[in-house]
């Protein structure tokens, strides 16, 4: 019997759809079943009882942005590791060396970032 290449995707698609539908249904039920008694007080921004001041469209520390960029770089590195890990035994020591060179370059980058203090959150 010739296997259907789409076979593993059928249950996966069903589950993905079900997850989405369930999330929508639960959210809908939440707004449908509860009472609706809006007051001015309820509509204010909750800041643990204090009067809210200013607005929430503020800029935040650039560190978060650096972390997101570093995350992409190391995520891509990890992505290259997965196929390598699967073929690892066949590739042997040569493959090991290939990946060592690749990772060493990125470790240099990590050391640079570390040295520059982009990973320090204390300050």
């Amino acid at each position, binding site marked *: 019997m010739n296997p259907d290449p789409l076979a593993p995707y059928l249950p996966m698609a069903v589950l993905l759809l079900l997850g989405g539908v369930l999330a929508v249904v639960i959210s809908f039920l939440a707004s449908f079943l509860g009472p609706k008694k809006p007051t001015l007080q309820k509509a204010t921004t909750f*800041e643990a009882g204090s009067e809210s001041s200013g607005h929430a469209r503020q800029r935040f520390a650039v560190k978060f942005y650096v972390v997101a960029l570093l995350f992409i770089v190391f995520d891509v590195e990890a992505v290259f590791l997965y196929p390598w890990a699967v073929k690892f035994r066949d590739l042997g020591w040569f493959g090991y060396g290939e990946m060592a060179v690749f990772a060493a370059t990125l470790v240099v980058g990590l050391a640079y970032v570390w040295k520059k203090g982009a990973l320090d959150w204390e300050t």
Partner: protein
Amino acid sequence: MKRILMVLFWMVLVIPGAFFGISAAAYWVAYFFEGLFRGGAGVGNILVLVLAAVMIVATLLTLAERKWSAAMQDRVGPNRAHIEAGPTFIQKMRLGGLLHIPADVLKMLWKEDFMPAGARSNRFLFNLAPMLAFAPVFVLFCVVPAGPMITLGEQARKIALIVSNPDFGLLYVFAIASLAVYGTSLAGWSSNNKFALLGGVRASSQMISYEVALGLGLVGMMMTFSTVRLFDMTEAQTQYLWKFTDGDFGLPAWGIFLQPVGFLLFFAAAFAETKRAPFDVPEGESEIIGYFVEYSGMRFGLFMISEFVEVVVLAAICTAIFFGGWHLPFGEKALYAELFTQGKVFYGHQWIWGAFLGSIFWLKVLALCWVQLLIRWTFPRFRYDQIQTLGWKMLLPAGLVNVFVTGALVLWDPSLRWLAVLGIAVLVAIVALATLGTGGEEAAHAHDGHGGHGADAHGHDAHASVPAHVSGAIAPSTH
């Protein structure tokens, strides 16, 4: 004494029995659906494994978390919920607090669902955020195997307890888990609340920081077993590293013996992804305001339940990769030969064997869930800079070192025995560090050889996570 007997009764009979039943039901439902259309087994597994087993365990965890925290703090925990109707014995029934679960669900569903004025300009994103937090977590269980492939019924269909077994296996988990970031960041941003924004950005940044360690932690296991499929990884763990007798007895090639560092990396990183204490800076319930501060009723409930589903899925993935999945540590083949081969008691009833192993899987999952509860109620919260330092300066380098050490040992000795020797040595070192003096926390961080940082990474924060639900609180879950 009576209480101990009660606990033993539950642990030995009721819980394994319930999981035996669920696994058996999963096999037969999958069998039935496979008869309806080709590939139906996976769809059947969705119904029983994801909708029933995972969701039930996650729901029970909401109560178990409160009960266990109570036990650790010498309280009784939630025990008041009861039914105010019917005969006296029903009114007196407490069921150990079990009725708090339906009480919580009903309460959250019927609460007013209101939106702060500031969020109205982004109504769509505000409503979307809890869905984006829940849906990815809900579908994570897709590639996790919960029972062996067995031949079932008159049509002799081959059924395994797994929803889908694609070639990319674990990568599906990484891909879908990475989407949960949108739930937190959008919730924080669209609430138009400074504290929610701060929580949302912190949560997202924390999640992406640990995602790299999450992947790196498992690369070692992919290398040892040359696959990314969880099903194949589980099956690969049946081999013995060393056989101690001529019979079916020895040290199994479980991931925990081969890759203890990988396990710690993955476990710590996945724990940070669930955003539970000690990693709960983005949502600290009692003093810091989290990214979901503006959500009410069941919309908040979606954030909360996704956290518990994550706990279950994390435990299930750890079980499949590091603890042999549904396999017994040893003696499995002997037991099968004793009971299920031609002429033996259960010959021809393969589903009993499958359901038995399925219940083994779920018992391991429960044990790992319990470990997570233990950690969550033991450790004080990390400061945010400590969280980032742990992720980038310890877990990431440790993960890279682990990959290359593992690689060298696997190539040097493909039988994996030297890898296991190193792994067991690391395990012994961790246990020794944990028991001798310094306490568990340093040991948990000392695994990567940066033990010096361990002292730095704990305890500065005086906010030991104060339980939000005080003793004997009635239905409300203020998680």
